[in-house]
């Protein structure tokens, strides 16, 4: 889809920044740094257009009980337990912006995110952050299932390997979401007229 055709479909996009934390992005190397740069452009454009920006972060109890089997089988999740690690420089939430914590892959599972977006008349969720095959893919599918148009910004998301990143984007594009560039997304933000 082009920015013009998406703009013809939606009235009020919001940006969802998934796990923009250094403990998540730094291990992704150059791909992570590139995604942060892309995400920074998208978030800046959204703020300038007066669109809603919401941040989703993993946050578990110290014992990980609220992560259930997912936490138990993934020792790497322990970096998010007890206290929340710092955000990526340049992608820190503004004081006015909502940070929705979660303890499972999708930003929509076990959170009030969908109700918040509906209450704010949002109809499209633009996804940036990490990882493409994990939190982005899960949130994109749940955005769709909750009635929002998911837009994944390909150059603002990253994964541990190029293979995982591209496979996830292929699946998302084939079945669930619009996959756009950061440039196309900022163009979209200028075309929509916030309510």
């Amino acid at each position, binding site marked *: 889809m082009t920015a013009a055709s998406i703009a013809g479909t939606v009235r009020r996009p919001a940006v969802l920044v998934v796990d923009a934390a250094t403990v998540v992005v730094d291990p992704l190397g150059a791909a992570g740094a590139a995604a942060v740069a892309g995400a920074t452009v998208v978030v800046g454009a959204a703020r300038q257009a007066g669109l809603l920006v919401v941040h989703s972060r993993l946050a578990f109890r110290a014992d990980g009980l*609220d992560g*259930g089997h997912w936490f138990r089988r993934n020792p790497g999740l322990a970096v998010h337990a007890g206290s929340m690690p710092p955000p990526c420089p340049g992608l820190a939430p503004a004081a006015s912006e909502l940070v929705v914590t979660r303890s499972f892959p999708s930003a929509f599972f076990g959170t009030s995110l*969908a*109700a*918040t977006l509906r209450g704010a008349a949002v109809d499209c969720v633009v996804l940036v952050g990490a990882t493409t095959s994990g939190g982005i893919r899960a949130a994109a599918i749940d955005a769709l299932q909750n009635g929002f148009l998911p837009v994944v910004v390909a150059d603002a998301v990253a994964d541990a390997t190029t293979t995982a990143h591209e496979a996830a984007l292929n699946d998302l594009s084939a079945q669930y979401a619009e996959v756009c560039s950061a440039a196309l997304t900022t163009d979209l933000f200028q075309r929509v007229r916030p309510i």
Partner: protein
Amino acid sequence: MRATDDYTRAGLQGSLDLGVAQPTALIVIDPVECYTDPACPLYAGVEESVAVMADLLADAHEAGVPVVITRLGHHPSGLDASVYGRKIPALRWYLEESPYSGYIDGLAPGPRDIELVKQYPSAFVHTTLASTLTFLGIRRLLIAGLSTSGCIRATATDALQYGFEPVVVSDAVGDRLEETHTGNLFDIRAKSAELLTRREARTLLGLA
């Protein structure tokens, strides 16, 4: 005809078999000071129920069953209170900035308890409660807290809808008006949950 007779004849007012032992947890809904501090406009005069809640919480700890304690938590912008915040101006008393948002003495979550911050009346809605209870193998939920017509009723209905046996502890829930409290307990008993007193709940937990 008495109301209960009419309901029974209609096929309502059924009973879950509490004689069958089931893995049980206790949930205490929103035990916060806005209901008990007379300076707060939301003060509800529920001291008697609150005292029973504390006894029930001690029972659950004694029995070693999982305990969940909830509170409402919203962003100061009201964004995540959404339509609920627009409908209920009183949500402002639960905000962290409010002097009345703290837990009532003796009802704050301890280190072994599970604190659950929710944005809506039901403790199951937009939270991981059902997931966590499933992970813990829980089948039955004792429900206490505030208030009977709001969050207690919503949580009891949702416990049923999510596949857990709801048991509302009738003297450990309270509301601002006696008729509202009684009327809602009647509806809850008729359509969603069993009602037990705290003494009966203590026995259900296997305590003397």
